[in-house]
């Protein structure tokens, strides 16, 4: 099976956009919960930082690999 060409690039772009939208949407809801119901502000802050760092790193990896694949 050969996964290449403009169709493959479009699929990857759509997947990347979906991942970005999913991360943004879930982040918004999680952040709302953490801000509203967070009992221990220090612990919540730490988890929030880890969450955003990890998520942004993975999105960056997706974005860069897309650019390498479809320059």
């Amino acid at each position: 099976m050969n996964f290449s060409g403009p169709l493959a690039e479009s699929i990857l772009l759509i997947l990347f956009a979906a991942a970005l939208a999913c991360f943004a949407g879930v982040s918004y809801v999680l952040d709302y919960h953490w801000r509203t119901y967070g009992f221990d502000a220090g612990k919540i802050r730490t988890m929030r930082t880890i969450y955003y760092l990890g998520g942004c790193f993975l999105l960056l990896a997706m974005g860069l690999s897309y650019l390498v694949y479809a320059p």
Partner: protein
Amino acid sequence: MIEIHEGEAVIAELRRHWFVFVAQAAFLVAFVAAPVLAVFLLEQLAGFVLDPNHEALVIFFSAAWLLLSWIIFFIMWTNFYLDAWFVTDQRIVDIEQWGLFNRQVSECRLDRIQDVTVDVDGIVPTALRFGDVHVQTAGEAREFLLGNVPDPYAVKDIIFRAQDAALRRARNADESLETGH
């Protein structure tokens, strides 16, 4: 966050035992490892070879899969962390967090508690000392369930001690009213 009344003190803040979260996280680890295992099996059984020229594609899909797992992990952690019980010197507050969009907060006054039952069921809960605490309240069909809490016998003692203190305070207040002091 719970709203603390004036003069009220939180005696205990309880959450499920860490083992419950670890058990859930173990499924997530299997979920993360599934594609790696699938590719390995395909290579071994069907002679499938991953094209080395498509490294970028492999990184793209791996990152997407990890991102999905990352999001699921934090949803699980949020559910675990926000699902809590508070024992104060006046009441028990039970916060049930189901997913991201379902949250239930209920409370019962300590003077309405009739009996408390501890249920430690199984090898792992016995070894790691966690279990359920059932709190039966008077006049209501509802039973409070503090599920999989660490050291449930200590929790039962905390509730009974808090209830004794609350009843004593109520009795003293009644006597003061009667005597006018």
